[in-house]
C-alpha cells in the first residue's frame, strides 16, 4: 500500500518490538505540521521561536521528559534493549519527549535508525500520542547528503531526525560554531518556562556533556533524574555516587586522559568536587532504574506522577 506523506503504517506490535526488529519507519501518531518536522534555527541570544512553543502545546499532558546520554561502549545487544525499554516504560505517555534531534542512518538503505538516545522521542511519538521535540548545537558546518537528502549535523554521521515534530538548532551565528553543550542554555530555558509541568531527565550512558550539562544541571535545578543502571560511563558513575558515595567512576574518562599531569588531575578533581556539591542534599531526586527493565521504568515514572494525567 502506498503511503501518503504524513501517513504512517500501523505501529509495530509489542511482539515485533520485543523480537528486536525495528520498524523501518517511526513516524509520529500526532501531527503538528502536515508538511513534516518543523526545523528552526535559533541564535544563541534569541528566544525560542513561537512555533516551538506551539509544538509543545500539542501535548495532552503537562509532562516533559528529556533524554540525555549516548551509546558509547554498547554492544549490539545493549543497543537492542533501548527501544523495548522505553516503549514499555513510557506506554501511554502523551506529554513532550525531548532530546538532541539527530539520528544515524543506514547508508545502504537510507533509512533512519533508532540506535541512539536521541532517537527515543520519535520512537515514543510513534507509539504514543506525544510530542517529540529536540535541540542541538551547531558544532560543525552542516551539509546536505546528496544521495539520501539528510542534513548532516556533525562529522560523525549524525543527521537531522525528521521523525521529530520540531527541532531547534542553536547556533552562535552563521560563521562560528558552538561546543557540544551549546544548546543546553536554550534547552533549559524551555524547561524553566514550563511552569507547573512535571519534568524528568533520563540519563543513559553519556560522557562529560551528559554529566555536567544534563544530569547535574538538571539536579541543580531541582529536577528528578532517572539514571539507567548498567548503561555504562557517567550514568553508572552517578549510580555509584548515589548508592555508595563512590566517586571513582565520575569523570573517569577525563582522569584516564589526564595521566600523571598534575594540572589536569586537579581539573578532574574539581569536576568531581562540583558534582559532589550538587548531589549533596539532592540524592532523593535521583531514581535508579536498571537499563532494559521496562516495568521498573514504568513504575518509577508513575511514582513521579507521570503517565497519569491528560488535559
Amino acid at each position, binding site marked *: 500500500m502506498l503511503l501518503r506523506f504524513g501517513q504512517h503504517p500501523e505501529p509495530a506490535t509489542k511482539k515485533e518490538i520485543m523480537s528486536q526488529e525495528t520498524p523501518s519507519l517511526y513516524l509520529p501518531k500526532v501531527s503538528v505540521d502536515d508538511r513534516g518536522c518543523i526545523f528552526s534555527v535559533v541564535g544563541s541570544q534569541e528566544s525560542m521561536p513561537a512555533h516551538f512553543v506551539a509544538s509543545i502545546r500539542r501535548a495532552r499532558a503537562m509532562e516533559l521528559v528529556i533524554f540525555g546520554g549516548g551509546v558509547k561502549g554498547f554492544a549490539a545487544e545493549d543497543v537492542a534493549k533501548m527501544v523495548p525499554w522505553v516503549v514499555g516504560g513510557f506506554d501511554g505517555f502523551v506529554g513532550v519527549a525531548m532530546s538532541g534531534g539527530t539520528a544515524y542512518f543506514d547508508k545502504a538503505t537510507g533509512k533512519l535508525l533508532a540506535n541512539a538516545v536521541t532517537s527515543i522521542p520519535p520512537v515514543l511519538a510513534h507509539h504514543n500520542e506525544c510530542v517529540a521535540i529536540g535541540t542541538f548545537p551547531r558544532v560543525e558546518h552542516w551539509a546536505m547528503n546528496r544521495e539520501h537528502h539528510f542534513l548532516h549535523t556533525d562529522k560523525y554521521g549524525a543527521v537531522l531526525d525528521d521523525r521529530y515534530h520540531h527541532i531547534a538548532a542553536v547556533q552562535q551565528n552563521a560563521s562560528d560554531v558552538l561546543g557540544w553543550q551549546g544548546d543546553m542554555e536554550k534547552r533549559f530555558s524551555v524547561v524553566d518556562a514550563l*511552569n507547573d509541568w512535571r519534568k524528568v531527565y533520563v540519563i543513559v550512558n553519556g560522557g562529560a556533556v551528559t554529566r555536567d550539562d544534563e544530569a547535574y544541571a538538571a539536579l541543580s535545578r531541582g529536577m528528578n533524574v532517572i539514571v539507567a543502571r548498567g548503561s555504562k560511563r557517567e550514568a553508572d558513575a552517578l549510580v555509584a555516587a548515589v548508592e555508595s558515595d563512590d566517586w571513582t567512576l565520575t569523570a573517569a574518562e577525563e582522569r584516564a586522559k589526564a595521566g600523571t599531569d598534575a594540572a589536569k588531575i586537579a581539573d578532574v578533581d574539581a569536576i568531581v568536587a562540583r558534582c559532589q556539591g550538587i548531589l549533596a542534599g539532592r540524592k532523593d531526586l535521583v531514581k535508579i532504574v536498571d537499563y532494559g527493565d521496562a516495568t521498573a521504568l514504568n513504575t518509577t515514572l508513575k511514582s513521579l506522577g507521570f503517565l497519569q494525567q491528560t488535559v
Partner: protein
Amino acid sequence: MSNFADTSSSLFVRTGRESCEKFLGKFLDIRIRPFVLRVTGGCGLMGPEHAVGLRNVQHALTGGARAAKSLPRFTGFCLFGGTRMVNRTNPRIVVPGITEVVPPINRLCSGSRTLGIIAKVGDLKHSRHGIIVSDDCDRSLPLDQQYVTIAHPTQHSILLVQPSADRTASWDDEAKECIDICDHLRKGHWKGLLLVYNGGGVVEREIKAWAELGKSDPFWQVLIVKGSGRTADKFACDADFMEQHKETVHSCGNSVEEIREALLKYNALVYPPESLFRRK
C-alpha cells in the same frame, strides 16, 4: 492548606529586550484554551458616568452578576495593565478603572489565566499596600480624590517591563509589550481579541496599531464598546475608520447582553460544558 506565598502572583522583571521565557511559559499551560484577550481602556481620566459601565464588561466576561452556569464565560489568557488605582489618603478605596474588570476572572472563570503587563513608568516603591508603580495623578484634583497606582494584588502573573534599572518606560510600553506577546502567540496559530472600553491617548495608539496589523492578518481583531466614552466612542463613531477596517475592527453596545454577544461572536467566550446538556 495554602498560604499567602502559594496564592501570590509571580512577578517577572524584564529589562530592555531580554527574553523572559518564564513569563512566556505561562502560555504553555495546555489546560487553558489558546486564546488571548487583551483588555484595555480608561483609568484615572475616566469619568464616573462611564466607570459605572465597567460592570457590564466584567459580567459579560464572567457569566453575569451571579456567574450563572448557563451563561458563557471567558476562557483563555487575558492580558491587561496589571495595576490598580487606590485612593491616596485611604488606600482601601479602589478607584474604578479598566484594570478592575479582569481580576474577577481569576475566581469566576476556571479556564483562564490573567497576566498583567506593567510598564515601569516611575521609580517603584514598596509599601504595605503593595508595590507602587506610579505616584503620578492629576494634582488639580482634591487631595481626597487623588490616587496612587499599585501592582494589582489579584492576577496570576505579572511582567514588569523597564528599559533599564535606572530608566523609566512609558504607558505606551505596556501596549507595545502586549502586541509583542500577541504576535508571538499569533505565530503559534492562536486567536486573539483586543477589547476596548473608554480610554485616552495610549488606547488610541493601541487601537490604531491593532487595526494596522489587522490589514495583513485577521488575528488582530478589535472590539470597541460603543457608549463607553472617550477614545472608544471616537473610533466607534468614525464611520470611515470602521469601514476601512471592517474585517477586523468591530463595535458593540454598552450592555451586558450586547457585549456578551459580541465576545461570543469573536470567540472570547465559551459555554461551560454543563450548560450544553440539560436534564429533562
